[in-house]
C-alpha cells in the first residue's frame, strides 16, 4: 500500500498536478473580472438590442454578428498583437492595459462573452409574456421599476441554463489567453511539456483541473437555478 502511494507521489502526473495548480489562480483571476463585467454589459447590450432606438439596436446587432462570426483567438490576437502595433494606441493611456497580456485577455474575453450573453438575454427578454408586462403597467410601474421587478428577474431566470453553458465555454476560453504568454494553467502545462518532453502527463494534469473548475461552475449554475426557480422545486 505504502509502495503504491509512493509510486503515485513519484509519478509525473502527480508532480505536474501541483505545478499546474499554481496557475489556477491566474485562470480564476481572468474569470473573476471578465465574467461579472460580461454579465452586466451583456444585460445592457441586450436591453439596447430590444430597445426601440433603431440606430442603437442596429449597432449592437452588428457587434454581435462580428464577434460571433470570428474565432476568439482572432479577437485575442487582434487586441494583443493588433492594437499594440498601432502607434497612437501605444502612446495613449490605453497602453497601460494593453501591454499586459492579462488585461488583453480580460478585454478579449469580456468582449466575446458580452456578444454571446447579449444574444442569450435578448431571447429571455423577448420570451416574456406580454400579460406580465401589462400587469406591471396596470399597477402603475414606471419603466425602470418594470425592468427591475418584472422583466429582468423573469428573463434571467429563464435563460439561466443557456447562460450557464456560456459560463462553461468561458472557463474553457481562458486557455486561449495562454497564447499571449500569460501563464495560466494551459500555459504552465505547455511549459512543463517543453521541459520534460512528456506531453500526455502535463496536459492530463491540466485537463483534470479544468474538469474540476467546470464541475464547480455547473454546481453553481444548478444552485442559481434552484434558488431563482422556487416554483419549480419538487419538494419545499
Amino acid at each position, binding site marked *: 500500500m505504502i509502495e503504491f502511494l509512493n509510486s503515485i507521489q513519484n509519478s509525473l502526473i502527480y508532480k505536474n498536478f501541483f505545478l499546474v495548480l499554481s496557475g489556477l489562480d491566474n485562470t480564476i483571476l481572468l474569470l473573476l473580472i471578465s465574467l461579472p463585467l460580461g454579465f452586466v454589459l451583456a444585460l445592457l447590450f441586450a436591453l439596447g438590442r430590444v430597445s426601440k432606438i433603431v440606430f442603437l439596436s442596429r449597432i449592437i446587432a452588428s457587434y454581435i454578428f462580428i464577434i460571433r462570426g470570428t474565432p476568439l*483567438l*482572432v479577437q485575442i490576437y487582434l487586441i494583443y498583437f493588433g492594437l499594440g502595433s*498601432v502607434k497612437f494606441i501605444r502612446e495613449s493611456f490605453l497602453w497601460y492595459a494593453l501591454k499586459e497580456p492579462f488585461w488583453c485577455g480580460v478585454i478579449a474575453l469580456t468582449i466575446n462573452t458580452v456578444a454571446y450573453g447579449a444574444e442569450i438575454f435578448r431571447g429571455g427578454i423577448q420570451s416574456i409574456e406580454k400579460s406580465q408586462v401589462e400587469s406591471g403597467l396596470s399597477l402603475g410601474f414606471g419603466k425602470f421599476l418594470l425592468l427591475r421587478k418584472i422583466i429582468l428577474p423573469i428573463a434571467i431566470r429563464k435563460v439561466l441554463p443557456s447562460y450557464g453553458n456560456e459560463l462553461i465555454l468561458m472557463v*474553457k476560453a*481562458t486557455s486561449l489567453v495562454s497564447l499571449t504568454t500569460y501563464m495560466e494553467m494551459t500555459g504552465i502545462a505547455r511549459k512543463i511539456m517543453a521541459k520534460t518532453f512528456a506531453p500526455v502527463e502535463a496536459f492530463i494534469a*491540466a*485537463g483534470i483541473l*479544468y474538469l474540476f473548475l467546470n464541475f464547480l461552475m455547473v454546481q453553481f449554475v444548478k444552485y442559481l437555478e434552484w434558488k431563482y426557480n422556487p416554483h419549480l422545486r419538487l419538494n419545499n
Partner: protein
Amino acid sequence: MFKFDKLVFGDAGWGDEFLIATLMTLLVSILSMGLGLFLAIITVWAKIIQNRITRFIANFYTTVIRGVPELLVIYLIFFGGNAVVMSIAKVFGYNKYIELNALTIATIAIAVISATYSSEVLRASYLAISKGQIEAARALGMNKFSIFFKVISPQVIRHALPGIGNVWQITLKDTSLISVTGLVEIMRQSRISSNVEHSPLTFLITAAILYLCLTTISGRVFRTLEVNYSKGYST
C-alpha cells in the same frame, strides 16, 4: 495602419497565400466535421443501446472532452498523438519513426471535439422520433438496416439540421486553434504574414473578415438546407 497594398495577389502581396489558407481552413473544417459526425453516430449508438459499459465510455468521452478546453485537446493530440500511433505500430512489428502530418492531426483533433457536440444534437433528434414510427416500420416487416436508412435517418437529419449548423460554426471557428500545430490555415497565415510585414493589424483584420465571410456564407447554406429538409412541415 491598414496596408491594403499588402493584400494583392502575386509576389507583392499575400492575397494568394490567404486564398490557399482559406481553402485549407475549409478543408480541415469539412474533413473534421465529416469524421466528427461519424464519431458522433458511434457515440450516440453507444449511448442508446442498453449496455452499461458502452454507455459509460460514451458518457465519459463526451463529458471529459466538453469539460476540457479545446486547446488542451489539440495539444494532447498533437504532442501525444505520434507516440500513440508509434506504440500501435510497434504492436504490428513496425519500429520506424512515424510522424503524422499536420493535416491528419488537425482533422482528428477537431473531429474529436466536434463529435461531442454533434453527438448531443444527434441524440436529441433521435429521441425526438416517436417510438410508434419504429414500431410501425417493424410491423411492416422492415429490417434494421432499412429502418435506419428509411425511417430514422431522414427524420434525424431534419430535426438535427439547425443544431448541426451550430456545430459547424463552432467547428469552423475551432480550426483557428489548429494554427498552434503549424498547419497553415487562415490564423497561421495571418501570423506568418504579420511577422514578415510587421503589420499585425492588417493581417489579423483580414483573418477576421475571412472567418466572418465563411461563417456567414455557411449560415446561409444551412438555412437553405433547413428549408429544403422541412418541406411538408409547417414551420
